[in-house]
């Protein structure tokens, strides 16, 4: 561990004890939760923060002047401060917009900033390993405003193939890529891509959904222009996500959804939008969810992101080694086989057994994995797959989870012969 990051108190067993759902049993077995990449589990601190809001402080935000309304506003705005600190947003909370999830954040980017700033023929450069959330909004924009959507290919090593990046960058106004693939586990060279994008006068947007709960996120260091993620993938609740951009860009972005809360003035002849994040937060926001997100940030900071990253790296290395040794090559990992620039997401292709059948057998062992295309169909096509069974780690994962995974996989392989 790097000096200056002295986090020694991290203990996954304590995280486990803090996480109520992990005490459940299914089909007579203790649950083995390996689906954090789809949605993480919440520690009691997050659940209690949300309950506390409803039990003690519930009121609408930015409206009433009574005590609980002030408290509700403090909870909501406090979460914005916590998130800004967590990702080291260059100018603080004024750059943090709360959305419904990372998908809505991408839609905000495409339908507000991109729609106002891109001209027909301008190129948005995404990659073949993107989640549909970072593909479909761009095709939607293409269909109304004639932009071009271009893809950075993924190599046979499951990493972005940047060999022809100079060719790919022609006409690009926005690079929009994931920090970490939700299928392959590949961690992309965001800092390098930001330098490349800027050298061509383009901006760069980053999908941080898979990264924020598993490694340190430092937006000052990354030097990107847009960053999006969801709370529920970082031990927080569903229903709230984050859109970050630099103040200067945010200031010039046209409003997206219209309604209450996003205005400075409304008259019978028109309206004036609010400035700052509230311009993009029409209607009553997810207040309880913001309380949960704020608590998730505090919880993760308490564990130490460096310690979580190191813990998950070890789990991933162990799982990759053992998957490689067992099953006579019938279980193939779709993703990098080392832990350099790689996170704890492990997609499996089991020879002769469809991912849904794998997951169904695993369920009988209490093992939760995600089968399917993981909302990344272009990537699945790239590797001639229709589906994989994906196991993914979180701060509460233990080597014991991999033990159960391997036991259950053995059963699936035998059953379908």
């Amino acid at each position, binding site marked *: 561990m790097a000096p200056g990051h002295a986090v020694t108190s991290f203990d996954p067993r304590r995280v486990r004890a803090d996480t109520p759902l992990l005490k459940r049993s299914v*089909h007579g077995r203790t649950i083995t939760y390996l689906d954090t990449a789809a949605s993480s589990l919440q520690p009691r601190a997050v659940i209690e923060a949300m309950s506390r809001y409803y039990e003690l402080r519930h009121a609408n935000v930015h409206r009433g002047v009574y005590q609980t309304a002030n408290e509700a506003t403090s909870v909501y705005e406090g979460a914005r401060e916590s998130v800004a600190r967590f990702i080291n947003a260059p100018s603080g909370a004024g750059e943090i917009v709360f959305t419904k999830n990372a998908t809505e954040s991408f839609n905000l980017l495409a339908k507000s900033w991109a729609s106002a700033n891109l001209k027909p023929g301008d190129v948005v450069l995404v990659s073949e390993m993107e989640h549909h959330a970072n593909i479909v909004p761009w095709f939607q924009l293409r269909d109304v405003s004639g932009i071009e959507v271009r893809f950075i290919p993924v190599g046979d090593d499951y990493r972005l193939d940047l060999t022809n990046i100079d060719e790919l960058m022609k006409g690009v106004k926005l690079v929009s890529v994931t920090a970490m693939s939700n299928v392959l586990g590949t961690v992309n060279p965001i800092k390098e891509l930001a330098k490349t994008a800027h050298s061509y006068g383009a901006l760069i947007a980053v999908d941080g959904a898979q990264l924020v709960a598993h490694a340190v996120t430092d937006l000052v260091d990354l030097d990107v222009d847009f960053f999006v993620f969801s709370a529920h993938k970082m031990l927080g609740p569903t229903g709230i996500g984050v859109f970050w951009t630099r103040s200067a860009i945010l200031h010039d972005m046209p409003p997206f959804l219209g309604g209450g809360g996003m205005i400075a003035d409304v008259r019978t002849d028109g309206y004036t939008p609010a400035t700052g994040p509230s311009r993009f937060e029409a209607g009553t926001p997810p207040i309880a969810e913001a309380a949960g997100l704020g608590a998730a940030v505090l919880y993760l900071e308490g564990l130490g992101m460096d310690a979580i990253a190191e813990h998950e790296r070890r789990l991933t290395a162990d799982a990759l080694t053992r998957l490689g040794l067992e099953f006579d090559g019938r279980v193939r990992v779709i993703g990098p086989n080392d832990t350099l620039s790689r996170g704890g997401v492990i997609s499996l292709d089991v020879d002769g*057994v*469809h*991912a*849904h*059948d794998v997951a*169904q*057998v695993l369920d*009988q062992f209490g093992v939760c994995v995600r*089968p*399917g*295309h993981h909302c990344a*169909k272009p990537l*699945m096509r790239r590797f001639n797959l*229709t*589906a994989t069974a994906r196991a993914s780690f979180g701060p509460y994962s233990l080597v014991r989870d991999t033990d159960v995974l391997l036991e259950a996989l053995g059963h699936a392989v035998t*059953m*379908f*012969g």
Partner: protein
Amino acid sequence: MSNLEDLYREVILDHYRSPRNRGELPSPPAIRVEGFNPLCGDEITVYLDVRDGVLVDIKLTGHGCSISQSSSSLMSAAVKGKPIEKVREIIATFKQLMTVHETSLDEKAEPQPIDLRALGELAALQGVVKFPVRIKCATLAWNTLSQGLDELN
């Protein structure tokens, strides 16, 4: 593992390992219909050769899980050579089998007795209803077949 064995009956695994009526028919004259399961990426193409009100031949291509593949194979074996009216009857009975789960949740609904003998090997798929997420796997081929028959009109 009793639940699992209920889902993965031997008949199902057999049809998964050795699917019946795989292949294509020249289209036209055969009717060609595609079905997709957007949630899991399963794809199926059904080819129907209908002559004088009889489904003379049926072929299937595509890929998917054991439930969707065996269901389509079992379906092809059940409907091949049957008059269209009979095919529609089999589809209706099968769909009824797949909706048992929902109707049993509704206390007011009188569950219609299903003639399992009339379903033959298809009855092996009844374990699927205990796994609601998998019902769409089992019904993909059948919905695609229905769509193909609609094109006859």
